[in-house]
């Protein structure tokens, strides 16, 4: 029934198709790219699209199609790890806050209010001041920016569920806090967390691109869509395709993932299920 509804949902189908293409491109780039993404060719610098280089070349003569393909890996990796960091720590804080309440809840929520004042770019600026900018910095910075949303979502679920009859019954039967949290409340919290993760993933990709563009994320010569846009800026008049293809890759990826997330949210909406 859910599968039938899914396939009728245009947004979900388009989003799924784009996501599959992204993942396939990234996977393919690990074993095959038309050219070596790092191979330079001074005679082929700043070319527009040609047969040999369908997306053109950059300032070092490197094939842009190959670099855009390999850049998908960076985006996916940063997205997954950043969301993992945000979700892992955020859920933990949300569980403690929502289940135990009291001064712990108050303290953690004020801390989350403070963390909310640090968008990924600000966190990356701060961390890059003391450590050398790198892709790891962008993962941590973006993950930190996601902490509040996952913490609040988990907290809200736990606040709602901790006083329900089924929890009281489990407690009366001798279940400890760990069992109640892990076996009874957490499974009922997963659905909104999964939806939030699918919403956060494209946000992470955008943030990674922005940090790489600023020089605070992936460092040269490794391919990253944001880094390619940074490098393209000096050559906008000479070869505009240098800026168009990586930016288009970012936009298409984020669009597809957003449509997937929206579709998933609609499909998992309890008012529409059954």
């Amino acid at each position: 029934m859910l599968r039938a509804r899914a396939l009728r949902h245009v947004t979900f189908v388009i989003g799924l198709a784009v996501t599959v293409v992204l993942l396939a491109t990234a996977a393919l780039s690990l074993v095959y790219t038309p050219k070596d993404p790092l191979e330079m060719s001074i005679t082929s610098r700043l070319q527009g699209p040609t047969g040999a280089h369908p997306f053109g070349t950059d300032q070092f003569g490197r094939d842009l199609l190959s670099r855009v393909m390999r850049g998908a890996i960076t985006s996916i990796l940063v997205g997954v790890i950043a969301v993992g960091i945000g979700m892992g720590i955020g859920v933990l804080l949300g569980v403690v806050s929502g289940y135990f309440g009291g001064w712990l809840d108050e303290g953690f929520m004020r801390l989350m209010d403070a963390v909310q004042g640090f968008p990924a770019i600000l966190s990356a600026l701060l961390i890059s001041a003391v450590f050398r900018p790198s892709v790891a910095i962008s993962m941590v910075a973006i993950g930190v920016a996601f902490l509040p949303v996952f913490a609040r979502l988990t907290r809200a679920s736990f606040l709602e569920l901790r006083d329900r009859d089924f929890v009281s019954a489990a407690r009366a039967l001798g279940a400890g806090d760990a069992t109640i949290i892990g076996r009874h409340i957490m499974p009922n919290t997963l659905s909104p967390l999964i939806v939030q993760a699918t919403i956060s993933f494209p946000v992470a990709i955008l943030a990674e691109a922005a940090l790489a563009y600023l020089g605070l994320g992936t460092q040269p010569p490794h391919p990253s869509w944001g880094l390619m846009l940074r490098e393209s800026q000096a050559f906008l008049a000479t070869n505009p395709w240098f800026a168009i293809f990586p930016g288009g890759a970012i936009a298409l990826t984020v669009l597809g993932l957003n449509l997937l997330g929206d579709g998933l949210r609609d499909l998992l909406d309890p008012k529409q299920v059954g």
Partner: protein
Amino acid sequence: MATLAVTLLFVSLLVFLVVRVLPGDPALVIVGTEGSPEAVERIRKALGLDRPLVVQYVEWVGHALQGDLGRSIQYDVPVAGLVVSRLSVTLPLTVMAAVFMALVAIPVGVYAATHQRRWGDYAVMALSQLGVAVPAFWAGLLLVLLFAVHLGWFKSGGFDGWGQGVGQGLKALLLPAVALGLFQFAVLARTTRSAMLEVLREEYVKTARAKGLAEGRVLFRHVLRNAMIPILTVAGIQLGQLMAGSIVLESVFYLPGLGRLAIGAISARDLPVVQGVVLFVASVIVTINVAVDILYGVLDPRIRYE
């Protein structure tokens, strides 16, 4: 106010801990591995790093509350002065972007709500999906390509200051503000649409129409006014996001704002400047978020009673 104070305290603690505690020895970070032990010791004494951590934090917060954010190692001037001077670019840019965002998002959201499930609504939803997907800095690059490189209507970047006239200053900030605000309209447009749809279902709207009021009057006097509460709160939150986004756009358009100040300070290992800028921007974002919460309670009496 107590909530805001505690939150700002946490903000200051986070900034302090990352810069002072994480790297082990900030003096070594500033001087670098090539520096002499004497230089490291000199920096350590100058920044008060030889004192206990709690004392350092209390002194640093105390100075920050009086507007003293330390001294720039690179420029040897007060950090607060640098922040204020760069605000003359970042603040107008953020405000202009917010105005563009609101000017596009609210009418578009109203239109989508009044044409629900028709082509107009679908077009708006599709545009808003595109808006969310397009990175602002890529939009900025494309605007430079079109309006500066091909059409020659604008310079590709730079800011000569407000001394050349307000008009020239606004012209220099126009493209970055459009890139920043126009593509952020998506969230606000969706909020406007949802809020309008919520209010359009209310009984008093049916009553107003049944009384024979013109549709425009119904929409603007009854529907939009009541829908403005969530719209204003989301717009307020977006303001903080726009400020963070301006940091990136300043690099696209070579604007001498807070963002480029901080990025330059990273290369120069000017920790006091990075610390000062991040503390300032984070505090502004947190204050805006708390102000939005308060505004929500002020505008909607039902929230206060709850």
